[in-house]
């Protein structure tokens, strides 16, 4: 089966990303085309206007700091003006601006504003290309991981990113769950596992019962703003401060290039300190002396104990979250059979020490902390796409945060509590508060606070067209659903008459549908330009024209058909042809597209005829 349809699992990280698949039933990391196992999650626009992704982007980051974006994951699905974003704006070398709706965030690179999912999409597309090089074939199906603590908006935005990159995101799964999956792969066991996942930007902790090839998540907790970047920032702050002390108050923050060099050096020192006790930070010509004075060098030693001192509170924050999550689930540290360390930050001895002290046991060293998540995603992709029956693994995940609605007075009413196994749904009755009220507005939120404003607003739902009635007499049953991916859905029904109620959604973050289309078209243009297939280009335009005419005729055709019993199968065929044409367009397959061209023409004839009601009678189509 896997011969026909390659699939991949992607760990879309804050700092680094990885892609994996199953080769002969064994999970395996796919190396980048340049031979690296990890791809930096960086996107840059070079001075010549070229887009650079991954290793290429990282290599030029120092000289082009303001046009090099990193850490998109910490911004994805977040709202402009939120505390996290304001915080990030202060330290990021690239420029953030609000999106056209005013609610989401754009990153300005090379004079163009990129939506956050767009940046993630570029990284995903890079990984996709790596996978295609590995398989020698097109790859479209992927499982992408997100931190367990991601909310609905962040998951949506990640899915959008996958779509923009031309991937069919079969499933969004949680990183710790994915790690447990890779850990438990091929093993027979019955264990209670805790995954302690401290990555580049986010911290997750998950408690799972693993056994009988089921990965049953009991509880998750986390902090989407705690990770390696915060550790780096502590080092940078310390470096900047000591430099200022040494050189009469020169502030390195004002120099973007110097700051980028410091960032690089800080990260490198942090990594080195996992192996050795002391790391040298030597940055010659870091700052110009100015006024004809000699350039200034930077030369400091950072010891492991100094690093631990600088970051002690960050480690303690992670332990506190772990403690709370265990308490939540009624699990004592001693009940845990295995502690898995995931994420690059767990290589730090100080972190390992804290985990060891908390659980009173040695954490497992059996997995590669940076690769394990992508491997798990590949395993899940295989289980979803090529099920083999009973032996297959099954993930039972939970929802990380309370889902609820805003009540009068700004209070938050939980409808689906956190740590509920997904998929799940819960109905809630709303009633009208005025006579003949025709609409109800419901704000849906996710979070842990009792106060609505302190939680994340997922969207506002307006129930329209409520039948007239005395206040309190019309009950609307609103059903809230959380899918297995943690994505929220809402539907409504008049519980008196049983009729479905229309719901309109105003998403507060992420991209609008038209904008998605525009970006996807643009990406397609980009790809096409790169492939330089002129013929395809022409055919594509023509096909587009036919497709859009077909689409515009569709309502008229439907109307004609509703009055007649003829032509239904012919229309079905026409629709198949359209689907094939779209497939060929999406695959950018010139041969397929030419093959379908003739049929498409005939479909157009048929539709024109049906739409006017006077054209040729429907006849058999090829």
């Amino acid at each position: 089966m896997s011969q026909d349809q390659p699939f991949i699992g992607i760990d879309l990280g804050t700092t680094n990303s990885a892609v994996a698949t199953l080769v002969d039933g064994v999970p395996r990391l796919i190396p980048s085309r340049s031979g690296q196992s990890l791809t930096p999650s960086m996107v840059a626009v070079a001075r010549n206007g070229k887009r650079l992704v991954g290793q290429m982007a990282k290599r030029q980051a120092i000289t082009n700091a303001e046009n090099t974006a990193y850490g998109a994951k910490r911004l994805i699905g977040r709202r402009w003006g939120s505390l996290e974003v304001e915080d990030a704006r202060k330290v990021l070398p690239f420029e953030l601006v609000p999106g056209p709706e005013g609610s989401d965030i754009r990153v300005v690179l090379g004079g163009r504003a990129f939506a956050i999912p767009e940046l993630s999409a570029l990284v995903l597309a890079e990984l996709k290309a790596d996978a295609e090089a590995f398989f020698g074939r097109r790859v479209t199906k992927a499982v992408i991981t997100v931190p367990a603590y991601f909310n609905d908006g962040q998951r949506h935005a990640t899915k959008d990113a996958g779509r923009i990159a031309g991937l069919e995101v079969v499933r969004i799964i949680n990183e710790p769950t994915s790690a447990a999956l890779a850990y438990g792969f091929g093993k027979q066991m019955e264990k209670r596992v805790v995954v302690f996942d401290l990555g580049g930007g986010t911290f997750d902790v998950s408690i799972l019962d693993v056994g009988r090839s089921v990965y049953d998540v009991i509880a998750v907790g986390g902090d989407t703003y705690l990770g390696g970047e915060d550790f780096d920032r502590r080092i940078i702050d310390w470096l900047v401060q000591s430099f200022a002390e040494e050189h009469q108050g020169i502030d390195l923050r004002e120099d973007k290039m110097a700051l980028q060099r410091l960032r690089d050096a800080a990260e490198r020192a942090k990594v080195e300190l996992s192996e050795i006790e002391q790391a040298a930070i030597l940055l010659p010509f870091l700052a110009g002396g100015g006024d004809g004075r000699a350039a200034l060098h930077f030369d400091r030693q950072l010891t492991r104990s100094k690093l631990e001192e600088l970051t002690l509170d960050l480690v303690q924050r992670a332990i506190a979250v772990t403690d709370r999550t265990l308490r939540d689930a009624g699990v004592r540290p001693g009940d845990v059979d295995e502690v898995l360390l995931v994420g690059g930050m767990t290589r730090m001895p100080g972190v390992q020490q804290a985990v060891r002290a908390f659980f009173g046991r040695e954490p497992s060293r059996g997995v590669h902390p940076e690769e394990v998540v992508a491997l798990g995603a590949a395993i899940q992709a295989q289980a979803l796409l090529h099920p083999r029956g009973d032996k297959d693994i099954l993930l039972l995940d939970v929802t990380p945060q309370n889902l609820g609605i805003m009540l009068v007075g700004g209070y938050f009413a939980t409808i689906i509590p956190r740590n509920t196994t997904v998929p799940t749904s819960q109905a809630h009755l709303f009633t009208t508060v005025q006579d003949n009220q025709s609409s109800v507005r419901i704000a849906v939120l996710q979070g842990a606070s009792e106060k609505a404003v302190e939680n994340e607003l997922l969207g506002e739902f307006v129930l329209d067209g409520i039948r007239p009635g005395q206040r309190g007499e019309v009950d609307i049953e609103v059903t809230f659903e959380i899918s297995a991916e943690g994505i929220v859905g809402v539907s409504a029904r008049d519980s008196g008459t049983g009729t479905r109620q229309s719901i309109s959604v105003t998403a507060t973050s992420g991209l609008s549908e038209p904008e998605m289309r525009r970006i996807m078209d643009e990406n397609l243009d980009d790809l096409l330009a790169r492939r330089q297939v002129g013929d395809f280009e022409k055919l594509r335009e023509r096909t587009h024209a036919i497709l859009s005419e077909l689409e515009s005729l569709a309502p008229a055709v439907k109307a004609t058909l509703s009055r007649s019993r003829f032509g239904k199968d012919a229309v079905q065929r026409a629709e198949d042809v359209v689907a094939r044409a779209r497939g060929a367009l999406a695959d950018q397959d010139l041969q397929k597209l030419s093959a379908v061209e003739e049929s498409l023409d005939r479909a157009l004839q048929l539709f024109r005829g049906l739409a006017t009601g006077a054209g040729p009678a429907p006849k058999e189509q090829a």
Partner: protein
Amino acid sequence: MRRDQNPGFLFDSEDLAEEVEIDLDLRKDILFFAGSMAGWTHWEVLGLPWNAPADRVREAYLDRAKIFHPDRFTGRQLGSYRQRLARIFQRLTEARDALSSEVARAEYARTTAPPEEVARVAARQIENDDRARERRARIARSHPLVARMVRARELADRGRRALAEERFEDAARDLHTASALDAGVGDIRPLADQASRKAVAARAREIWEKARAAELQNDLDRAQLLAEQAAGIDPGDPRHGIYVAQLALGRGALETARSRAEEAVRAAPTLAAAHEVLGEVLAAQGDTAAARKALTRALEIAPSLPRAREQLRKLPWSFLR
């Protein structure tokens, strides 16, 4: 959970015929499950016997989740079955969540127990009670202080039973003993006194009956003796005094009769019979005015006393007084 074991389930042919990418057997399982689960207990949902332990709950949940979890059908045409699968999985999860806490499980077991189980539990309860009683008795035998208390309790119980069966003397004996052994046994003292009183009354009544028998046999001396005895035993009951007075009157011992009758009137001023007998004695003595007064009083209390009425009519009128 093969449908063969549930022949009562009616499949909707339209549902079965729906074009979906699911095997017919599994389709039937899904329809059966989704159509029946509303009426099932959490255990039935998981295919477990009533009150199955928590570890089996988890096992059963995982087995069924593997069959019905929507992930098992990724990428397949599911039609209306998609919704059913989601509902089934949620129902399974609900059952698991409800049964995985021991406390919640016990509570749920109580509310869902089948009738035969309720009967079994009740029988066991009775058995337990019996056993507890035996155990108490055993302990009692082995410890003097406890023995005393247990003995007191047993006596009190026996005394109460005797009281209810109107064996007043037994009751009085047992209750007084119990009260003496352990003053804390209920409110035993007043009950003991009450039993004593009733025992005395019963004893006096017995003798009175013998006196009546002697009277009927015209052995008036013996009757008089016995009646005096009864009155002596239960001086609180004026009826015995009245009877003595009546007997004395019949035998012509008027002085005795009068003093007894007067005593009875003093003891029970509202008893018509006392006034009546006094009136008769006074009439016999010829004290007409006093007799009339006593008889009138008797009739005031009980207007239907025939003997008093008769006596009053027979009294000669004296306008002197």
